[in-house]
């Protein structure tokens, strides 16, 4: 643009628009208006086209209230009979199934990520190399293939139920899943109703709060006086004694249910099904590899001085890692690791490939029976976004706590 126009005295970017002698077409306000107008018009056209193509007159969610007429497996803590319950109920069963996978996979992949990430920096050559091998293998293969492979290996590798592997009458492993003991409400001494468990859990939370308060006070005093006040031991002691006492006083409201095998079925206890296990293990191995790289990167980003300082104070390798390096690396890694958690959420949809009835699969079944693809997709995307929002909110909370603590 070679047009000579008197330049405004100081064209501060984003400042007020020059007025007066500038022709209308060159005024910023006018241009902005023009650009936005054109843009909005184009977008509106596009949306109108899509709206017209989809013909949304019948858009509605009434069909979700109709009876489901299908069953889903992998229920836990709930028992929804697919014949009489509505489609939306079945969908919520799927959401609950997804949430379990996501929760467990996030926890396990974090553990794997930290262990492997630290191992990659180990001074032990073999350990470092093995960690690298793990990362390179699992990061570079498709998650779908990992999941179906884990599932196939489990079905082939684990014994069939007729030859179930009995682990000390305590747990049972077969390719129908792993049955483990599980706490259940119990009548106990006083013939207590089930809600005693709720009371006990509430009391546990209260005791936990007390323990944490004591711990913080002792930490503060330790810092002030320089004398050891054993904050962690105290907190743990209070919690353990409190839990035990309330447990006895309430008359043992919880008992452990041990599983057993009858015919080809597991009874009692809790069964970790192969489909759940395959999906969770697949997600854990895959995400763990990415988490390991994040952990390694954040540790390497710390100044070398931190390690040297820790050495100078005479900390052991374990203390150095847990007290000095990891807490600082944590701040750096939280944003990236949050991203990985969000990926776990989305990748859990691969349940579609391993016979696990998660939200995506149940939505697919409903869509197959009732049509309404657009509505079902709307429901799916809103659900995933809500779960993502919860994960992000939790991570932001953790992030705020981590960054608040002074070094």
């Amino acid at each position, binding site marked *: 643009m070679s047009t000579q126009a008197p330049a405004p005295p100081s064209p501060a970017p984003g400042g007020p628009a020059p007025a007066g002698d500038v022709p209308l077409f060159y005024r910023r306000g006018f241009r902005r208006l023009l650009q*936005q107008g054109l843009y909005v018009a184009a977008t509106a056209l596009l949306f109108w086209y899509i709206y017209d193509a989809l013909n949304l007159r019948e858009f509605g969610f009434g069909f979700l209230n109709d009876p489901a007429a299908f069953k889903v497996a992998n229920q836990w803590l709930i028992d929804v009979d697919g014949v009489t319950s509505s489609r939306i109920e079945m969908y919520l069963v799927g959401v609950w199934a997804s949430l379990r996978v996501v929760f467990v996979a996030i926890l396990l992949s974090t553990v794997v990520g930290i262990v492997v990430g630290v191992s990659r920096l180990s*001074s032990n050559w*073999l350990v470092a190399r093995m960690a690298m091998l793990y990362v390179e293998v699992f990061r*570079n293969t*498709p998650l779908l293939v990992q999941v179906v492979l884990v599932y196939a290996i489990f079905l082939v590798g684990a014994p069939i139920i007729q030859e179930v592997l009995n682990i000390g009458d305590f747990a049972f492993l077969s390719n129908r899943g792993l049955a483990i003991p599980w706490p259940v409400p119990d009548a106990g001494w006083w013939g207590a109703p089930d809600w005693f468990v709720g009371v006990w859990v509430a009391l546990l939370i209260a005791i936990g709060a007390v323990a944490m308060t004591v711990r913080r006070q002792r930490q503060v005093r330790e810092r002030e006086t320089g004398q050891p006040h054993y904050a962690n031991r105290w907190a743990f002691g209070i919690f353990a004694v409190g839990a035990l006492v309330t447990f006895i006083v309430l008359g043992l409201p919880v008992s452990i249910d041990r599983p057993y095998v009858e015919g080809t079925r597991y009874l009692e206890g809790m069964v970790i099904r192969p489909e759940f296990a395959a999906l969770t293990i697949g997600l854990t191995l895959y995400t763990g590899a990415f988490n390991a790289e994040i952990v390694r990167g954040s540790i390497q980003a710390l100044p070398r001085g931190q390690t040297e300082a820790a050495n100078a104070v005479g900390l052991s390798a374990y203390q150095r890692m847990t007290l000095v390096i990891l807490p600082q690396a944590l701040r750096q890694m939280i944003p990236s690791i949050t991203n990985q958690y969000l990926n776990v959420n989305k990748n859990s949809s691969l349940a*579609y490939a391993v016979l696990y009835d998660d939200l995506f699969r149940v939505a697919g079944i409903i869509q197959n029976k009732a049509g309404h*693809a657009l509505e079902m997709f709307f429901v799916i*995307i809103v659900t995933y976004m809500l779960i993502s929002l919860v994960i992000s909110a939790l991570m932001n909370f953790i992030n705020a706590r981590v960054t608040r603590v002074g070094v």
Partner: protein
Amino acid sequence: MANMPAAPRERIVLPPHRQRARRPRSVRAREWVRKNLFPSWRGTLLTALAAGVLGAVVVGLIAFVFFGANWEVITHNRWLLFAGGFPREEAWRLWFSIALVFALIGLAYGTWSSLGRRDHLFVLLVGGFVIFLMAHGGAAVWSSIYFLIAVGCMYIGYLLTYRLPRATSSMRTLQVRLVGALLILALPIVLVVLLAGGNVGIRDLDGFVLNLILAPVGIVGGILIGIPLALGRASSLKSIAWTCTAYIEIVRGAPLLGWLFVALFILDDIIGGDLIIRAMVVMAVFTGAYMAEYIRGALQALPRGQYEAGQAVGLSQYQRMRLIIMPQALRISIPPMVGQAISIWKDTTLVTVILPLRELKGNADSAISQFEFTPDRIEAYVFVAVIFWIVAFMMSRVSQRVERAQGVGER
């Protein structure tokens, strides 16, 4: 080697207290082992533990690969897995494309990097693996020869660019531009070679070939969509920024599987067309949202001074963007973008799950539904995993090269 007195021709003579005889290699090796594997009893325990795990895995793998597995499910179905329903009489198109891409890889490596001993080893291993697959129990001699020719093309391309024109800077510029243009044009050229004329249609893309086409289309399309999206999101015009943000967040909100679901059930009313095209559109739209975020991150990472400097030199907006901002932003965002490319490469397996397209994993499912191969599921999936690993690993290595080249190169 046993006793090494100070070399007579050594010019620099260290003072006696710093003189240290170069110890024999065996001693050094022993020291290295002690330091890296057995530093203390704890370290020794760790090493033993790790060695135990590694040993178990290796023994298990060897037992499976060489004794337990029936690899015939792969060798018998190599064409099904590789190209599936692609017309066999048109196979020259595949080989020609492969040779073309290999030559291009060679050219690019020669231009921006160099092949080290490890790269040759990698080529040897992968090449050996492929040739073994093709030669095992079949009369695929010609395929092996074609493959060797393709590898040959790679080395010729490499030598052409690596050996010859490093003399003058103008030659160098020409070379960079030529190879860069070829890289950009590679995808359309390959598509033309594969599909133009003759007895082939887009529906014939099948098996591993489909993965190999879907991923680049998704990546290139994703970058083309991602750049305007990133600029749009950073715009101060509210309507543009808002819609771009909405696009990015909504697309990133749902899994790819969900978007493929859209391709099948919803896009038929909006764009219609063949499902392969729809799958490509969805791949590009999906990747675009992620690419946009990486580019936006890079735009934000650029110091404001860059914008102002461009202004100060009197460049127009377009020139500023093209000459100053985008080159830097794109360069910064290369590593995460390659990460996304690897991710989309792996995600091409998902098209089989929802859409009626048969890529490698889908054809592996067909292979294990054949009469004699029903028990060989693990073999088939392991093979698929290995194939995907090879390409993804290559991509990650290239990304590392690029990062390193950036560090020492033009900045």
